[in-house]
């Protein structure tokens, strides 16, 4: 997405994207007569017959398989209630934790206020189910959490993780990006600050072209 040379059009809700009978409406668009109209604020993807919008603002929409960073909100007998910063609450059952946990002392593993890196394995009517049974998941210790807009996450990660690896390598930090817009940074104090600034810069300049060069310049310039 980042390396594509063609400039993408920015549309606002209600704007007619294209007036063509051959085109079909895709994500976040509707068809009225001949016109395809935008439903969200975002960039248009009209490379195929189906026209869709990549939204650049709005709340987190959970999907199955997303890796998210959440904060433990409450503990009950069978697991943890976790806030993931969306319209729905999430639940992490004890059985989805890979380690043995004493049923009488669940708080020993994660107490209220702790943050976890978890994966969404199911979305039901009542809420979201999380799991820790995968590589790289678990409780996060040390470092700090920052928040960005969830729709800017693909930009922060970059194509096949190019952007995030660039930031990681030049600031010597560990970074985990949750699909819900929460980012965990751990490293030296200076590195953390630098990485945070770089991520904020990516978010601000998300729709401008030549983003990677700008970030490279930012990270190299102030080293």
């Amino acid at each position, binding site marked *: 997405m980042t390396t594509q040379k063609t400039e993408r059009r920015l549309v606002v809700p209600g704007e007619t994207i294209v007036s063509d009978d051959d085109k079909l409406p895709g994500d976040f668009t509707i068809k009225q007569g001949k016109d395809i109209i935008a439903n969200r604020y975002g960039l248009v993807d009209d490379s195929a017959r189906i026209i869709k919008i990549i939204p650049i603002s709005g709340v987190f929409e959970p999907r199955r398989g997303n890796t998210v960073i*959440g*904060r433990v*909100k409450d503990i009950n007998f069978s697991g943890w209630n976790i*806030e*993931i*910063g969306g319209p729905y609450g999430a639940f992490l059952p004890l059985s989805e934790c890979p380690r043995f946990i004493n049923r009488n002392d669940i708080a020993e593993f994660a*107490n209220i*206020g*702790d*943050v976890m890196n978890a994966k969404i394995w199911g979305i039901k009517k009542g809420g979201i189910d999380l799991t820790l049974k995968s590589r790289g998941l678990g409780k*996060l*210790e*040390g*470092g*700090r*959490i920052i*928040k960005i807009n969830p729709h800017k996450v693909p930009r922060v990660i970059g194509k096949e993780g190019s952007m995030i690896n660039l930031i990681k390598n030049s600031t010597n930090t560990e970074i985990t990006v949750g699909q819900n817009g*929460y980012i965990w940074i751990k490293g030296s*104090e200076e590195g953390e*600050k630098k990485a945070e600034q770089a991520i904020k810069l990516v978010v601000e300049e998300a729709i401008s072209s030549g983003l990677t060069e700008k970030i490279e310049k930012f990270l190299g310039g102030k080293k």
Partner: protein
Amino acid sequence: MKIPNINIKKIENLLKEDKRLDGRKPFDYRDIIIESGISNNAEGSSRVRIGKTEVIVGVKMAIQEPYPDHEDEGTMMVGMEFNPICDERYEAGPPKINAIEVARVVDRGIRESKVIDFKKLCIKEGEKVWCVMIDIYCINDDGNVFDASALGAITALRVAKMPVYDEKTEKVKFGEFTKNPLPLTENITFSMTFYKIKDKFIIDPNRDEEDTSEARITIAISCPKKDKIINAMQKGGITPILTDDLNKIVLESEKVYEAVYPNLNKKIEGLK
């Protein structure tokens, strides 16, 4: 999402060495931007941005009967609202306790400093006086709404123009303004809020630092002539503030006032 424990730990540990997450010193403000003339219908209006925190303040004037114990004095009201737009923690509806608290702290600072000359706001003793209504709306809450609101309120008061009062019909002609400013005295206040995190104090916290802190104290200072006067002090939060700390804060507030206020004063003078 509420503040995670690791962020609290980080802020507390850094503050032990007098450092902060964004690289500021404990008593540094973020960039302050002041604008005026936001609303065409209000007598005076302002927008204040401290970092990402943003508030809009409007001053409206109306005719009112005076209170029976102050028959020759005008009145003042301060209203504050947190809109759901400013942070995910606020819901729509009538102002809740935190909004009322901000309004009262701002009100106290302005009222006790006697910056408005209420005697001059009297039209007819015992019957008609001007009522100054200050309305504060938070557009974005990234911490330190207290100082932004107080600064916005005082800016709006200073740029406000009196509306036209028709003596024949005894009504206000809204939408028409005279060239007279509001009757203000020299006691122009500036509020600063100190937040307590563990044993340390900071000024102008961002969202995370404000959530970490357990107590705060707002000090309103004015400097009419040479000496600075403390007009009002209000404490909030759950943990106590010790006497020694309070003495330190008062001394520190004088320094902060000298460092921040002269520039802001020039800016506000330029807006008139």
